């Protein structure tokens, strides 16, 4: 039996993309799997009694070494901010390509804490900063220094000691361009080095609290229990900066979604599901419930989604109680039932769970999730208007139905803030600046393009069409990309009044492998990464299902 890939017109709706969950394809899981047999080492730990100073951690295999250089700084509570406008952070990090020399460390110490205002070099790969969760950090130190472990209930409400507020890579602020490193096999999956930085940062946070507690009370202090460490992740505070990324990298977006859709298709095509695979699927599903139950948020939007998810998960578990897994195409049958009975949040949760038993399907897909974007940049100008119109009508059918004459269809515009050079969203009818709008209103511009194409001769070549229509060149390029990459476009209006920008963030963060999305508004959210993950010293005893082993 052949199952069709799901229709991009369904999958690429923002409400659907905003319901995605972590899976076996997620980057932090594939990163750990790739680096599980690398040698981990703490090369330097030079902190003062208050935990300020520098530390270096490394992963090494054969002749390759990656080193995290960490700088912990003293800042006042009034200076601490997760917003991108901040200029000081509790700690700053950079991932160095190799083993840094003294001169490198000196250079980095002058630049890394300054983040965007500093400058790094092609020897550095990723850059980040993080702030303490003050209430958790102080609570942990207080208890450890008195010889006690911290209260797990308090820890579980937050889930981390530090949260990063940005992680930069690929040529930003002087970091190495991707072309310099893209042929390294260990980083074929996307965002591998960003994941490495975050993972090693997590270890730094544990070492730092142990160190400070010990200085505070050398006689009584104990170290943070390893199980507690394992159940703490790294938080992340994410705003709109991430949203345009998925519009600006269409082939990359396609490859992420296509990998997920291909996995689902292949799993639905399995005729006989083996008992061990059934058991593993059910095990992961049941164990994962802890992650949903312990999902704390103040957001009414997210609370409702979690409530729906839990209701639907109960329905799913009831359905599976009497489900006969020995019937043919069992997973397809479950999927078809879920598609009919469950909301998107739970349906996409199920898709993630169904991947768990199938390394043989998932592992080859992980290496297809990067993209050589430059290869698809040129517009095929020898194609005709007839072909372009067919592409538009086939691939943007819902978008072409949007009425952009309505005010609400045009309500927002995306712009780059002059202060921080970061993307922002504003109301076109209330704020100035829409004349400097970024090219992210793809639906509106595609509709405009379609209107112009309709009045041209079918035989006209695209090269000639562009002479008079270069104002729409950016979407002509996209149309020819979507022809080859059907999951490359969000099939929604990204400037409409009902836009939920956090749907765009959630899509990306789910591919990162984030848990516990906690929206703080429609424009920013907090998440947790690596909660439950093995510690670097335990990586060689790697368990691929660590994500469901969290105690929280």
């Amino acid at each position, binding site marked *: 039996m052949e199952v069709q890939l799901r229709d991009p017109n369904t999958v690429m709706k923002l409400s659907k993309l905003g319901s995605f969950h972590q899976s076996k394809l997620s980057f932090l899981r594939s990163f750990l799997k790739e680096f599980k047999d690398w040698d981990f080492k703490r090369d330097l730990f030079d902190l003062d009694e208050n935990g300020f100073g520098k530390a270096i951690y490394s992963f090494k295999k054969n002749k390759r070494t990656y080193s995290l250089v960490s700088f912990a700084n003293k800042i006042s509570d009034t200076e601490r901010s997760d917003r991108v406008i901040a200029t000081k952070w509790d700690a700053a990090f950079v991932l160095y390509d190799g083993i840094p020399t003294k001169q490198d460390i000196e250079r980095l110490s002058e630049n890394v804490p300054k983040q965007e205002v500093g400058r790094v070099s092609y020897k550095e790969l990723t850059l980040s900063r993080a702030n303490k969760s003050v209430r958790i950090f102080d609570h942990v130190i207080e208890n450890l220094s008195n010889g006690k472990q911290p209260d797990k209930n308090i820890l579980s409400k937050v889930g981390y000691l530090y949260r990063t507020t940005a992680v930069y890579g690929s040529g930003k602020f002087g970091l190495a361009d991707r072309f310099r490193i893209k042929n390294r096999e260990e980083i074929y999956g996307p965002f591998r080095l960003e994941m490495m930085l975050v993972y090693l940062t997590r270890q730094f946070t544990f070492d730092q609290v142990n160190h400070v507690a010990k200085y505070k009370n050398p006689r009584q202090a104990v170290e943070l229990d390893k199980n507690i460490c394992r159940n703490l992740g790294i938080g992340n505070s994410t705003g709109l900066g991430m949203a345009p990324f998925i519009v600006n990298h269409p082939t990359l977006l396609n490859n992420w979604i296509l990998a997920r859709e291909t996995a689902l298709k292949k799993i639905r095509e399995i005729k006989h599901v083996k008992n061990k695979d059934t058991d593993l699927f059910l095990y992961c599903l049941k164990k994962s419930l802890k992650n949903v139950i312990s999902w704390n948020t103040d957001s009414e939007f997210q609370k409702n989604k979690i409530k729906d998810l839990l209701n639907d998960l109960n329905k799913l578990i009831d359905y599976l109680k009497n489900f006969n897994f020995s019937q043919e195409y069992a997973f397809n049958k479950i999927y078809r039932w879920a598609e009919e009975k469950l909301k998107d949040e739970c349906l996409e949760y199920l898709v993630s769970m169904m991947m768990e038993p199938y390394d043989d399907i998932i592992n080859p897909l992980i290496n297809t999730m990067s993209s050589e974007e430059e290869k698809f940049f040129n517009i095929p100008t020898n194609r005709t208007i007839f072909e372009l119109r067919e592409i538009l009508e086939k691939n943007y059918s819902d978008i072409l139905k949007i009425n952009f004459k309505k005010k609400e269809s045009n309500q927002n515009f995306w712009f780059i803030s002059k202060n921080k050079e970061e993307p922002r969203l504003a109301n076109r009818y209330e704020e100035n600046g829409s004349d400097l709008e970024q090219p992210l209103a793809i639906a509106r511009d595609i509709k405009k393009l379609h209107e112009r194409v309709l009045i041209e001769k079918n035989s006209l070549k695209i090269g000639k069409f562009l002479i008079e229509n270069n104002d729409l060149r950016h979407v002509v*390029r996209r149309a020819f990309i979507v022809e080859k990459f059907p999951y490359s476009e969000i099939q929604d209006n990204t400037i409409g009044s009902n836009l939920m920008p956090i749907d765009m963030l959630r899509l990306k963060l789910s591919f990162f492998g984030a848990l516990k999305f906690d929206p703080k508004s429609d424009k920013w959210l907090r998440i947790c990464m690596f909660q439950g993950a093995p510690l670097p010293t335990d990586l060689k005893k790697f368990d691929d299902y660590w994500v469901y082993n969290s105690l929280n």
Partner: protein
Amino acid sequence: MRTLSEIDTTVKRASKAMGFSWGIAEEIGKNIRLLELFGLPGVKNLNQYFKDYKRKQFQKISLISKLNESIKIPYCPIIFGTNFIDQCTILEESIDIEIKNIAYPLLFLPFASRASEIVGKRIFLKIDEKEYLLNFNLSILSNHLNSIINENAKLISLKFLDNNNSFTDNEWQEIYKLSEDTFVEETDSLKQTGAGAGLTDND
């Protein structure tokens, strides 16, 4: 050192700020990135061109032909280049193209380099006395690699080169003969067992 990613993004934004459409701004970003990757002074030339662009007028050509001449004001290298790349599959048939009086000719170079990749042919480009061989957008060979600003070219001549070998048949035979020294002479036994295909194909 500025990274290629920074160059691409910043040039794209600067080009939009100069009044080019987002689509053309994307082209300029990619082109300057390419020039800098090949060690040519893209940012320097673009920066100077944008200063002139505010003060002077430039000819904006639409359809490119075998001979192109702008008598009063120089061609805009960006509009010329955009149309050149859009029309390169047709222009290829003309083999030789001449462009007289074009501003900042280095800014046209990456369009031609990318056209070389699109049509699958090398392009030989002469900007006045400076020569460039554009190899399928993989590399650029030149007799002129100074990091200077060239504000104008009186004449660019461009030739689409046929895909010919750079060596004679005799030279090929000589090198091929040497390569044969790595082959094993097959015995009857090896002929029967070495390939793995069936010995009878009539089943």
